[in-house]
C-alpha cells in the first residue's frame, strides 16, 4: 500500500472510537470490541508457524519433480496434475507439488516482508529524526531528496536495481529498502515535528538535555505507537513488491520458491491448469489481508484522542 493509503488509514476515525475514548476499558474488553485484531493476530501467528515449519509441514520436497504420470480412468495423465488426494492443490508442469511450494513461498514472502519493512523503518526513522531535530540545510536536503524519491515508480526502480546487481534474495531486499524509505520519512517527519513542540520536550531542552537524549528518551517513546502501526501496515506492501519483482523475473530466482515466480510460471497454463497460478495468488492475498486487517485493528485499538488523529 502506498504512503497515501497509510496516511489516510491513520487519519480515519475508527468505528467505536468515541465510546472507548470516554472510558479506558481493560485489555480483554478492548480485545472483545476489536475482533478484527484478534482474528488477524491468529492468522499471522499461523502464517509465521507455517513459515518456520514449512519443511515439516510440506508433504513433498518443493523442488521434487514427479513426471511419472497419473493413472486416471485407465488413461495416463501428464503433469500439471489437478488437485486431488495425492497433490492437494495440484502440481505444476514438472509435477512439483503446489501446496508444498506455497508453504515455502510463504516463508520467503514473510522473511522478505519483515526484513524489508524493518530496514525501511530504520532508514526512514533516522532520516525523519535528523530532519525534525536539526533545522537547516540538512533538513531541506533530506526533505527534497525524499520528495524526489517519492516521485519515482518504486517497482520500476527496484527492478532496475535487481537487474543491475543480479537478482537474488539479498539484492531484492536491498532494492526494496532503497525504494521504500521515502514513505516512512513522510509519515514520521510530521509526527516528529508535532512531538518536539510539546511542552515536556521544551522543558527537557531548557534543562540542557542533549539533542540525542531528547530524541532517544522523549521523541522516540512518544511516537512508539505510530512506529509500530507503520511497521505492520508496511509489511503487506513489501510482500507485494517482492512478489511483483519475482513475477517479472527480477526477483528471487529458482530453485527458491517465491509466490510471485510460481504465479508467473503458471500464467501460461491458466486455461488448462487454473489451479497452478490461482492458489499461490490466494496464499498471497490471505497473507496481505491478515497484515492489513492487523494494521487496521491496531489503529482502532490504539485510537485515543489527540494521538493518531493529529
Amino acid at each position, binding site marked *: *500500500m*502506498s504512503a*497515501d*493509503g497509510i496516511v*489516510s488509514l491513520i*487519519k*480515519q*476515525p475508527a*468505528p467505536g472510537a468515541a465510546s472507548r475514548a470516554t472510558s479506558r476499558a481493560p485489555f480483554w474488553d478492548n480485545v472483545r470490541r476489536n475482533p478484527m485484531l484478534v482474528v488477524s493476530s491468529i492468522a499471522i501467528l499461523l502464517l509465521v508457524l507455517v513459515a518456520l515449519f514449512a519443511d515439516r509441514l510440506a508433504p513433498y520436497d518443493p523442488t521434487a519433480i514427479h513426471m511419472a504420470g497419473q493413472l486416471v480412468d485407465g488413461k495416463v495423465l501428464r503433469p500439471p496434475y489437478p488437485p486431488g488426494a495425492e497433490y492437494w492443490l495440484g502440481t505444476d508442469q514438472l509435477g512439483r507439488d503446489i501446496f508444498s511450494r506455497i508453504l515455502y513461498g510463504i516463508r520467503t514472502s514473510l522473511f522478505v516482508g519483515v526484513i524489508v519493512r524493518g530496514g525501511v523503518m530504520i532508514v526512514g526513522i533516522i532520516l525523519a529524526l535528523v530532519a525534525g531535530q536539526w533545522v537547516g540545510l540538512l533538513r531541506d536536503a533530506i526533505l*527534497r*531528496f525524499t*520528495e*524526489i*524519491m*517519492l*516521485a*519515482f*515508480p*518504486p*517497482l*520500476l*526502480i527496484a*527492478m*532496475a*536495481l535487481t*537487474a*543491475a*546487481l543480479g537478482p537474488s534474495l539479498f539484492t531484492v531486499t536491498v532494492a526494496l529498502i532503497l525504494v521504500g524509505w521515502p514513505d516512512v520519512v513522510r509519515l514520521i517527519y510530521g509526527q516528529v515535528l508535532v512531538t518536539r513542540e510539546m511542552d515536556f520536550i521544551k522543558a527537557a531542552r531548557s534543562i540542557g538535555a542533549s539533542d540525542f537524549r531528547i530524541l532517544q528518551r522523549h521523541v522516540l517513546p512518544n511516537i512508539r505507537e505510530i512506529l509500530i502501526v507503520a511497521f505492520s501496515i508496511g509489511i*503487506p506492501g513489501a510482500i*507485494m513488491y517482492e*512478489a*511483483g519483482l519475482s*513475477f*517479472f523475473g*527480477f526477483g528471487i530466482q529458482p530453485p527458491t520458491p517465491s509466490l*510471485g515466480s510460481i*504465479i*508467473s510460471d503458471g*500464467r501460461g497454463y*491458466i*486455461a488448462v491448469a*487454473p489451479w497452478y*497460478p*490461482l492458489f499461490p*495468488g490466494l496464499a*498471497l*492475498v490471505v497473507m*496481505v*489481508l491478515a497484515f*492489513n*486487517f492487523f494494521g*487496521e485493528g491496531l489503529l482502532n485499538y490504539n485510537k485515543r484522542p489527540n494521538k493518531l488523529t493529529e
Partner: protein
Amino acid sequence: MFEYVVRRLLAFPFILLGMASVIFCLLLLLPGDPARLMAGPGASAQVVESIRQQMGFDQPIPVQFVNYLSNLARGDLGRSFQSRRPVLSEILILYPKTILLALVAELIAVLVGVVLGILAATRHASVNYALMVLSVLSLSLPLFWLALLLQLLFAVDLRLLPPSGYKNGLDIYIILPAITLAIPTAGYLARVTNASLATFLNSDFVRTARGKGLKSRRIIFRHVLPNAVIPIASAAGTDLSRLFAGILIVEAIFGWPGIGKYAYDALSHRDIPALIGAVLFFGASVLLVNLAVDVFYGVVNPRIRYK
C-alpha cells in the same frame, strides 16, 4: 494564492533537475561497464570501445554529468538501443495511451468508489462493515494476480473480452486493464468517501437540517456531499500516483503499448536511454499530479495556504 502557485511552479524545474541527478547517480553506482552493458553480451572489444566514445563514457564524470543535463535540457533523451530511434519521440507517441488508460481507470474508480462510499456511510452498519471489508480486500489483491484472474474469467471462460492487446484507444481492449487498475483505487476511494461523510454526518449543520425536517437524501446530496468533495477529490488526485505505479504491471500483462510497457521492455533488453526516459516521464507525471492536487487544495481550502 497566486504567489503560492507561482512558488510551486518555480520549484518544479529544480525538482526535475534533482530527479535527473538522482538517476545519473544511480547509473554511476551500478557495477560493471555501461558500454559493455549496452553492447550486450558477446560484443567485440571494438564495438564496446566505439559505444564508449559515442556515449562519452570515456570522459570524466563531471563532464558526463554536464553533457547529460544539457542534453536533457534540450529535450534530447538519446536514442533507444533497440529501435535506434530518439527516445523522446517514441515516448511522446506512447504517452497519450498511458494517460488514456489512467484516466479511464480513475474515472471508473471514482464513480464506483464514491457510490459505494455513500452507501457505506448511509446504510445500515452491517452494510458499512461489509463494504469496508471489501475495500480492504480490494487493496490486498496483487495487481498481476488480479489481472490474471480477470483474464481467466472474461477472456478464457466467458470469451467476452480480448485477453490482451490494443486497438485505436477507446476500444473493448481497454476494459480489462482499466478495471484491473480501478479496483484498488475504487476500494480506497470508498473508504475515504465513507470516512469523510461520516465526519460530516455528525456535524451541527446536519443536525440542524434534520431538525428542520429535510429528507435524508436531500441532506446527503445538498449538504454533506458538497463538503466532502474536497477530501475525496484530493484523495483521488494523490491516488493517481499509486495508479501510475500500477500501470507498469498492467501494461506489461495486457500488452497495452504505453510507457509502462515501454519501460518494462527497455528493462528486459537493458535499453538504458529508453529506461531513463520512461522513468523521467513517470516521475514528472507524478510530480505534476501532486502539484495539481496541492494547487487545487490551496484554491478550495484557503486555510492550507498559511501553513
